[in-house]
């Protein structure tokens, strides 16, 4: 139970928004371990607990591995759970992420995207969350602090749907969101309670109705479970669209499902962005549009499930597509680029990859302009390469 919280306008960091979102969702058990730049989330939640705003159980575990282990166990015991992490902490949790999704436990865990060592760095990069692609979590990226708060609320609603039952990982860029204050509209606790409803576990550890969860299982049974997880992730596409629509109807902010298009209708080239770079790219699109250039932007919100159908339908009408990545799969390309090209398989449109902002380097309007410039060229003549390292010393474009 939480104290009644009125709807209010706040000016808060992304981390605060993430913690406040969990508070509004009246989570039962939180287990977390601090890591920069997620620390503010655990600190803020500690304040909520110690000030008596919530009676949630907060387990201050000794590692992220234990944080996820405890969340899984608590959720298996029927609780709504929450944790948050970043970078090294997420890597340490990796083993447990598979278990959360395969046990169909809709845990919500914001990840504050941070560089993964080596060398050690604390600034924004997506090389922590993107390698978690195959762990069976719904994974999405937020553009601003409002979206962080809204997404925590939607994450519970999406994950807890009976046709989904999957854990959800909303991502927010280190410092650019986590430590930057922005105005955020918070709904009231009553509105949120009405919107997400009560968590009703589909299976649970209960002495009155004993069952075993996660036991040793031979090959005769596991393949069907894998299939069911895949179906659930496919179902999540519909759930995401429906929940974003319901959210828009209820709270007036529309996130349009898995992707958000910006000036794509008559665009000749489009750039797919993820995270905070989207804001910078919007500005660039406006500027280029003023110059008469037909450029568009796709804000990719969800990495899993991947918006294959949406991208294919946009790709039908454009002449070149660029994909921005803040992560790299060595020897192949940016993860979103690989994914996009796979989704567009068989379509006759060049797909280029722009790598920028790795290790937390700023991505400025000039960098994005460069991406559009390359894309405009690619629509007219076949590009000689696919992967462009923007703003990288020693690498010419």
């Amino acid at each position: 139970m939480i104290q009644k919280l009125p709807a209010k306008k706040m000016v808060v960091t992304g981390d605060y928004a993430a913690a406040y979102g969990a508070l509004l969702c009246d989570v039962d058990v939180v287990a977390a371990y601090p890591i920069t730049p997620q620390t503010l989330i655990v600190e803020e939640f500690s304040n909520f607990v110690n000030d008596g705003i919530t009676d949630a159980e907060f387990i201050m575990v000794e590692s992220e591995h234990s944080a996820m282990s405890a969340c899984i166990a608590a959720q298996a015991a029927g609780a709504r759970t929450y944790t948050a992490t970043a970078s090294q902490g997420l890597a340490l949790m990796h083993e447990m992420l598979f278990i959360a999704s395969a046990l169909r436990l809709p845990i919500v865990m914001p990840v504050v995207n941070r560089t993964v060592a080596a060398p050690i760095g604390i600034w924004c990069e997506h090389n922590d969350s993107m390698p978690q692609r195959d762990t069976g979590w719904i994974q999405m990226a937020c553009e601003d602090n409002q979206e962080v708060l809204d997404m925590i609320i939607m994450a519970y609603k999406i994950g807890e749907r009976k046709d989904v039952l999957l854990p959800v990982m909303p991502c927010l860029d280190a410092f650019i969101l986590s430590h930057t204050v922005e105005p955020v509209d918070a709904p009231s606790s009553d509105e949120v309670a009405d919107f997400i409803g009560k968590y009703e576990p589909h299976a649970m550890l209960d002495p009155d109705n004993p069952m075993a969860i996660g036991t040793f299982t031979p090959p005769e049974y596991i393949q069907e479970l894998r299939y069911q997880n895949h179906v659930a992730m496919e179902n999540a596409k519909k759930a995401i669209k429906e929940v974003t629509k319901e959210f828009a109807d209820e709270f007036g902010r529309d996130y349009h499902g898995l992707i958000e298009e910006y000036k794509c209708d008559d665009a000749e080239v489009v750039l797919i962005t993820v995270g905070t770079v989207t804001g910078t790219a919007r500005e660039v699109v406006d500027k280029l549009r003023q110059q008469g250039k037909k450029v568009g932007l796709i804000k990719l919100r969800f990495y899993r499930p991947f918006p294959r159908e949406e991208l294919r339908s946009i790709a039908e009408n454009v002449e070149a597509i660029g994909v921005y990545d803040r992560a790299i799969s060595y020897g192949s390309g940016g993860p979103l680029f690989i994914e996009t090209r796979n989704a567009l398989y068989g379509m006759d449109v060049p797909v280029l990859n722009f790598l920028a902002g790795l290790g937390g380097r700023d991505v400025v309007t000039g960098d994005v302009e460069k991406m559009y410039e390359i894309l405009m060229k690619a629509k007219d003549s076949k590009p000689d390469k696919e992967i462009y390292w923007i703003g990288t010393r020693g690498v010419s474009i």
Partner: protein
Amino acid sequence: MNIKDLPEESLFTPGHTACAGCPAPAIVRNMMKIFGKDTIVYTPANCLLVFSGTYPYLAWRVPYLHEAFENTAACISGVARAYRKKGKKTLVVGIAGDGGTYDIGIQALSGAAERNEDVIYVCYDNEAYMNTGIQRSGATPYGAATTTTPAGRKIAGKLEHKKDMAEIMRAHEVPYVATLSISHPKDFLEKVEKAKETEGFRYLHVLSPCPTGWRFDPAKSIEIARKAVDSGMWTLYEAEYGEITNIYKPKKKIPVEEYIKGQGRFRHFTPEMIAELQKWVDRKWKRLYGELPES
């Protein structure tokens, strides 16, 4: 509780697939008789997980969870907190092997003990990683041959002594720590009962002689457990909030040589190795429990 007063009903049923002579099923069956049906059990990866239930079979009649290997104490913390949040009283018990306790699980265990989580943590100690094929653990005694400490021509068995896990737990000053042996059933049941009645973090550590890994006649598990206690290789004691409150002193001490006899894992022992093991036992007793009575 007396043995004859134990309930007939078994919450850990027959039909499991443990090796002949394995004492682990008897350990959990008897514990469960005291814990009762209002209990939730977690088991990490180990022999117990595999032999007590390979889907769709299951020996447990209580809610039962498995997640992974190294996180028993974190998992039982999670279950216990979820139940505390609901305001429902339920006993939450984790049952891990020595590998899952001494080695890979010690971090989570130490954390949960320090937080004084309201749970019971049980270590059944068969002194090696049996489930993966008898590899050494921090619990393996000096000189014992395992598949990773083979009795080779140059190096014969494990070079290091057994880690004292119960002492590590005692140093956490938790409400209750006890060591148990199946050879001493009355003492065993009393300690399990005491654990059940205590609140906060409770740690029970049972020696579980493994005929397969230690290479002895499966009819002799209880006898070997008794010899472990009588030789001082395994010490039965209790501690509350860090203070030892009870030590069982065998009436007649036997030399370690007599304990290791009949166990294939010690077959290569030289007189020097026997002396080294004896020295360890004597040193430990003197430091912690007082001298052992003379044989």
